[in-house]
């Protein structure tokens, strides 16, 4: 519940800032109307960027993969000895 409250308060602050900007007329009005859409689009872009960067830096650990394959072979052999049916998938 607390995280939702934090997000909600952040949204409230941003909308208050936006309405204040509208009233004070520092920037031209048509500009200020476009700001929320711009922020939503940039947020989506940022999410996509994080996904792409995470994909690029994903570690594959080749040594652990090898050890895992050895463990699997060892376990299969042991279970076959004990009579358990190990279906090779």
């Amino acid at each position: 519940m607390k995280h939702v409250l934090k997000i909600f308060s952040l949204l409230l602050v941003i909308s208050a800032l936006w309405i204040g900007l509208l009233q004070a007329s520092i920037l031209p009005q048509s500009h200020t109307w476009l700001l929320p859409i711009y922020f939503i689009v940039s947020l989506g872009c940022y999410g996509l960027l994080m996904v792409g960067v995470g994909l690029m830096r994903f570690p594959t650990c080749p040594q652990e993969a090898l050890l895992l394959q050895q463990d699997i072979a060892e376990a299969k052999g042991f279970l076959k000895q004990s009579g358990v049916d190990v279906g090779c998938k």
Partner: protein
Amino acid sequence: MELADRAVGFLLSFISLSIFTYYTFWVIILPFVDSDNFIHNYFLPQEYAILIPVCAGVVLLCLLCMFIGFVMLKSKKKMA
């Protein structure tokens, strides 16, 4: 396998960065540029800057609802 992952990740980040710069240019920088500058030929009229994200958002919402509906129907069919 790892190269394919890297290529997809690079493509995604490239797409997102290009969309971000194009949209920033469109919404923030272009209104401050004179009307008869050559750069206006490369950008669509400003109404599309609102239309395209809204349409994309509506399409995304529809696809999401359809997907949820499909999954619910499939699970109900399996139970019956």
